[in-house]
């Protein structure tokens, strides 16, 4: 019972905001509680004094307090709802997240390092994979969309409107396929003109093919290297150069017809040194003739289907060239590798 009264006394003494005058006076007058009342009052007074002293030392100065109030109001009821306010809010959020999370700071730092290193490593990787070439490459066009490719002038003469024959359609298709392949074939980093001057004719012809792919056919006027071609491989390569030129420029080079004639007449049946032609050389030769046949530049033998004409720079062509040049290391230049693969 005494405890209950003392508990009530403490409650009333601790309650600074209440009006308990009569009840408090009654409890204080209780002889059993007199001592407890005095000690409790003394305790509470001392505690509040200590608190007041501590608060006086710890409280912010008025200027600081006003700044804090302004900051709080600016972030709540007076928040800026324009884009500046949104930006400030976002920045505050990000800064807050970063301030709280060490892991996030590490992730962000790692991301920045990676982004900074990306151009460097990207360049390195590209250079490792293939020689860096600036400029735009033709976008890979699906074969089905090739109808939009410009028709060569020669084909346009053949294909009469409304009277399109299967043969002319095949020629047109073969030319489109060849143009498509050539447009996607990467030019090689060929040796310099000085180096080429002393290079074997085969190398010069292959360099010329590459030069043509890089846009050289636009000003190609039919160089004379091919005139020096004497052996079969040289003539085959010269024919390939001229055929590329035809596909890309749509003008038949003057040297092409006699060259095809020589190749077709069977002068290649035996190599100049008297040995039998290798199967790879025969493959290259037939490939060139089949191309010419498919483009309508040479009369196709009966049963020949131009649709199946070999495409320029296909893989088996490169491999056959490789085999043919097996015993001629001076022609096996490393820059030819991309074509052989």
């Amino acid at each position, binding site marked *: 019972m005494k*405890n209950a009264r*003392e*508990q009530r006394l403490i409650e009333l003494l601790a309650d600074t905001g209440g009006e308990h005058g009569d009840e408090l006076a009654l409890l204080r007058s209780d002889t059993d509680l007199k001592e407890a009342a005095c000690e409790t009052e003394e305790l509470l007074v001392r505690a509040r004094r200590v*608190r007041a002293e501590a608060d006086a030392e710890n409280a912010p100065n008025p200027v600081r307090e006003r700044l804090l109030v302004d900051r709080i109001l600016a972030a709540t009821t007076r928040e800026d709802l324009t884009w500046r306010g949104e930006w400030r809010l976002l920045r505050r959020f990000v800064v807050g997240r970063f301030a709280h999370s060490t892991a996030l700071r590490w992730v962000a730092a790692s991301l920045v390092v990676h982004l900074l290193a990306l151009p460097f490593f990207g360049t390195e990787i590209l250079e490792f994979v293939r020689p860096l070439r600036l400029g735009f490459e033709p976008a890979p066009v699906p074969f089905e969309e090739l109808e939009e490719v410009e028709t060569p002038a020669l084909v346009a003469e053949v294909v009469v409107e409304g009277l399109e024959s299967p043969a002319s359609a095949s020629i047109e298709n073969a030319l489109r396929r060849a143009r498509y392949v050539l447009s996607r074939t990467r030019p090689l980093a060929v040796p310099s003109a000085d180096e080429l001057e002393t290079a074997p004719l085969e190398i010069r012809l292959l360099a010329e093919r590459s030069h043509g792919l890089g846009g050289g056919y636009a000003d190609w006027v039919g160089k004379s290297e091919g005139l020096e071609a004497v052996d079969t491989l040289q003539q085959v390569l010269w024919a390939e150069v001229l055929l590329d030129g035809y596909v890309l420029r749509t003008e038949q080079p003057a040297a092409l017809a006699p060259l095809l004639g020589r190749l077709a007449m069977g002068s290649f049946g035996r190599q100049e040194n008297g040995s039998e032609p290798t199967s790879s050389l025969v493959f290259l030769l037939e490939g060139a003739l089949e191309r010419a046949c498919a483009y309508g530049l040479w009369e196709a033998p009966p049963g020949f289907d131009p649709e199946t004409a070999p495409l320029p720079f296909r893989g088996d062509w490169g491999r056959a060239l490789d085999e043919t040049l097996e015993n001629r290391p001076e022609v096996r230049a490393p820059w030819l590798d991309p074509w052989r693969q």
Partner: protein
Amino acid sequence: MANWDLSQDPLVALRQGDPGPFEDFVRSHTRTLFLFFRRLGAGFHRAEDLTQETFLKLHAGAHHYAPRERFGAFCFRVARNVWIDQRRHQGARPRELSFGSEGLGEATRPDGRVEEISSGWGGGPRPLRDPLAQASLGEQDLRLRAAVAELGRSHRRVFEFAVLEELSYPEIASILEIPVGTVKSRMFHAVRKLRAILNPDRAGTGEERDV
């Protein structure tokens, strides 16, 4: 059943489109909350940040706010949660002991729970005024602090809210989420024990126990 004036509730007014009461509340209670966090052991700048965060939380929660208690008590409850969240965020970082050396603030226990060990009594080194008076007051303060530090955690919290924050028993009950009767009991035992410690020659009734 609420027996206070809801029209004075800043968040109710804010929800109704009137920011005035909330702004008034910010002006009048920024110092109170700031000191509350300082007593809990926060440094000066952290106490500012925590004060701002408390008001931001109040403002952000206005749309979902349902008044069930006096706004002051609700505000202290939010502030207490902000403090606990902040301690959790700090994790294993060293405790901030800007408020004296008796281990103020809260400690993160090995099991990850945040334990409040605030005693909230006074600050760090004080400027010397009258050396004799300072010595006397200092001794009394130290005895009082030591006595409060001896209280159990639950008793100490009730005592601090009642004496330092001058909150009513129902408000303390609301903040600590305990019945009012428990608040009364804890306060009774806390005061008894303090009296017994501070007046040892008249001791004999200080059978404090955690309730």
